[in-house]
């Protein structure tokens, strides 16, 4: 790859030669800057990690014990080998950051995963002017338009109430890191008790420690065997769907909270009772608003609909190309990492 840019794609990930560091590398390197703690961006085995301050708690939980993790407050500049680094909110999950890299008057930004819609559990996406913008494109097709968060949660609340009337427990599934806590912040806790799956519980504690206000919850595992679940909302990762873990609840209505639920086939394939459209990624319009706001002269497109997104941007007069990274984003497959 020609190096008029600060960043280049190597077989280990996005690399800044001048600063000798990687952003979200997928193979062990010496110095890694991590945009956020989801498994396809934060991998094991790096000698040094650098992440945002609010991301640190969650990242520590997910990396091996004793990992060398350093954190930087949003907006604070750190110099690495003469290259200026700063981290800026990406609005994806707690602590998610865009990495701003500046060297000799040139600015490049790696967005990681991001969304432009509001989310009470993390700092809002901050547009940054740059020469090169590396964007995700998980939902980079014009079939994805997110409804208002408030409408989605009104539907979730109504579903929960209706299940209560029918004597059914309500199981809301979403990624354990990010989506589960956003769900918790969005539902109306006055409707009934809320219980968490173990995998959601520990990450939720990290959110609380980081100062995110979340309603009171119990732990599924700690309830007695004969507990009556029919009034409760249960929040769990998608992997519990169809597993024996569900047996204890008796009659239960299942729902999945994801951007993929915007497409009928994906929803039916899940075989859940309800699909609620709520994503921690930007929708089609959000992606384009974010890209335009950077005023970047060049855009690199990673994970998702990279080819379609790049072609469309080029037709709109923005110089763009797809990038073959190992980021998987939020995949529409049953075997999510979280």
């Amino acid at each position, binding site marked *: 790859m020609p190096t008029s840019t600060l960043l280049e794609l190597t077989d280990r990930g996005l690399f800044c030669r001048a600063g000798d560091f990687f952003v979200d590398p997928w193979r062990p390197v010496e110095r890694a800057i991590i945009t956020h703690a989801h498994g396809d961006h934060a991998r094991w085995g790096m000698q040094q990690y650098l992440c945002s301050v609010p991301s640190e708690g969650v990242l520590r939980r997910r990396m091996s014990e004793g990992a060398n993790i350093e954190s930087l407050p949003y907006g604070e500049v750190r110099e690495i080998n003469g290259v200026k680094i700063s981290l800026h909110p990406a609005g994806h999950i707690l602590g998610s950051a865009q990495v701003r890299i500046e060297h000799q008057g040139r600015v490049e930004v790696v967005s990681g995963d991001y969304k432009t819609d509001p989310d009470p559990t993390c700092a809002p996406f901050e547009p940054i002017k740059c020469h090169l913008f590396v964007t995700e494109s998980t939902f980079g097709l014009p*079939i994805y338009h997110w409804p208002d968060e408030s409408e989605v949660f009104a539907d979730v609340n109504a579903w929960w109430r209706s299940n209560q009337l029918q004597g059914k427990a309500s199981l809301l599934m979403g990624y354990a890191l990010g989506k589960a806590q956003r769900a918790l912040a969005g539902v109306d806790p006055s409707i009934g008790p809320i219980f968490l799956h173990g995998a959601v519980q520990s990450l939720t504690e990290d959110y609380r420690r980081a100062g995110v206000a979340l309603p009171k919850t119990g732990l599924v595992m700690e309830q007695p065997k004969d507990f009556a679940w029919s009034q409760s909302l249960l929040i769990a990762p998608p992997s519990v769907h169809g597993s024996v873990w569900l047996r204890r609840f008796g009659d239960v209505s299942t729902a999945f909270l994801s951007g993929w639920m915007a497409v*009928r*086939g994906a*929803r*039916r394939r899940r075989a859940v009772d309800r699909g609620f459209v709520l994503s921690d990624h930007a929708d089609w319009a959000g992606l384009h608003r974010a890209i335009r706001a950077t005023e970047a002269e060049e855009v690199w497109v990673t994970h998702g609909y990279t080819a379609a997104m790049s072609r*469309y941007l080029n037709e709109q007069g923005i110089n763009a190309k797809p990038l073959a990274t190992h980021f998987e984003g939020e995949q529409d497959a049953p075997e999510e990492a979280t």
Partner: protein
Amino acid sequence: MRDFAELYRAIDETNRTTEKVTAMAQYFAAVPPEDAILAVSFLIGRRPKRLVKRPDLITWAVEAADLPQWLFDECYDAIGDLAETIANVLQGDGEGGEEHSLNWWVSERLLPLAKMDPALQRESLLATWKELSPYERFVWNKLITGSFRVGVSQELVVRALSQVSKVPVPTLAHRLMGNWDATPDFFRYLIAEDEGESHHSRPYPFCLAYALEGEPSSLGERNEWLAEWKWDGIRCQIVRRNGETFVWSRGEELISERFPEIVAIGNSLPDGTALDGEILAWGNDRPLPFAELQKRIGRKVLTKKILEDVPAAMVAFDLLEWNGEDLRVQPLSERRALLEALVASEQVGNLKLSKAVPAATWEALFEERLTAREANVEGVMLKRLDSPYLVGRKKGSWWKWKIDPLTVDAVLIYATRGSGKRASLYTDYTFGIWREGQLVSFAKAYSGLTDAEILEVDRFVRNNTLEKFGPVRTVKPELVMELAFEGIQVSTRHKSGVAVRFPRIARLRPDKKPEDADSLETVLSLLGAKA
């Protein structure tokens, strides 16, 4: 329109039939009769024909969404459903649109489309799309493209109507027969109180057989059992009462209209008779393969030609009512004697007796069963001679002893996206077998894989595509699967020159290389047939 779209969503989002029925019942109870009857007719498959040409629809959607054509195609590829793709690429959430009833939308917007030229259709559609929310748009697009389908059968619709009206299911099914217009008056008639008409149309609940897993000798003495062929057709009851004939399928669906020759049999029977048996396509004094009968199933209009090409016969195997008396508690041997006498005395050529398979011992019966495939039957039925006619699937007195399926190792050569739940996944496969050093297409199969395996094969297809022809992808011939099927016929549909019945995937064979797959010669020899 909002209520109807919500009903569609409620039905579409659940796999539980009770929830589907509840959703329909709530809808029927809540809306005026003119809406309810339209919903009934759409839900049972009397959907409008395609009113707008597909290329026109795409052109206008691309224009309204202000997208390049290629990007629309990408979207369609991701979703796999045109109505939904259009609904999703269009912006707007129905702002400014007034809420109108389903009846209003159908009479003011849908039906007029048929008489409009394309320019007017375009104008009408662009306005409609703007006024509807995305989900309403989707349902609307389904209606105007003649592709309105949702996961309920007529049986479930009838159950919902019955819940609301307290009218018995058979009465409703009967009232829905024949020609009717979707008017509020018809809906009122449909749900009006039953005045005894259900009694004379009603079939008996069907007795169903269990599959025999072990050896038949475990059932006891051979002479305690009646052995018949297991006919491969449509299970039905002919009910003749009060001078009227009703032909019922096993799903309590009235199928009289689709089989006039079977109704003719019923018309010749005395009042107070109910026969249980199987409808078969019949020619040259033997059953024709099920594929022939399939040509008649699902056809609403029967042409003279189809009636001549695929004549239907009834093979009767039980007599449930005689002289108005319910015989079900009588032992099979006695019902059978009456049935034999009845069929012998009838002068109707297409009423047949399901004859006993003549084999004195279990060993002899085993030998006979091996000839089942040649006789175009699925195997042997075993029925205990001293048993009453039971309701539903009860273990013990009726057993089906099917012939084992044939299996072949074949190579995946083409894949197409599925529909519905499987839209956007490659789930419909065409398999090849070897002929003179080349893989020739041999069978299509859709079912048999687990969801996880489907994802695995989908990934393989996407990563190993050689060519795309529209929705079909040619893939690298690498994946071997074991196919099971029931029979074989000469056919021009596949390059191999044969077609198989009931093909399904028995399992993936990752242990096999494509060169290990079977050849046409093996397949033919396996069947003892000649090419």
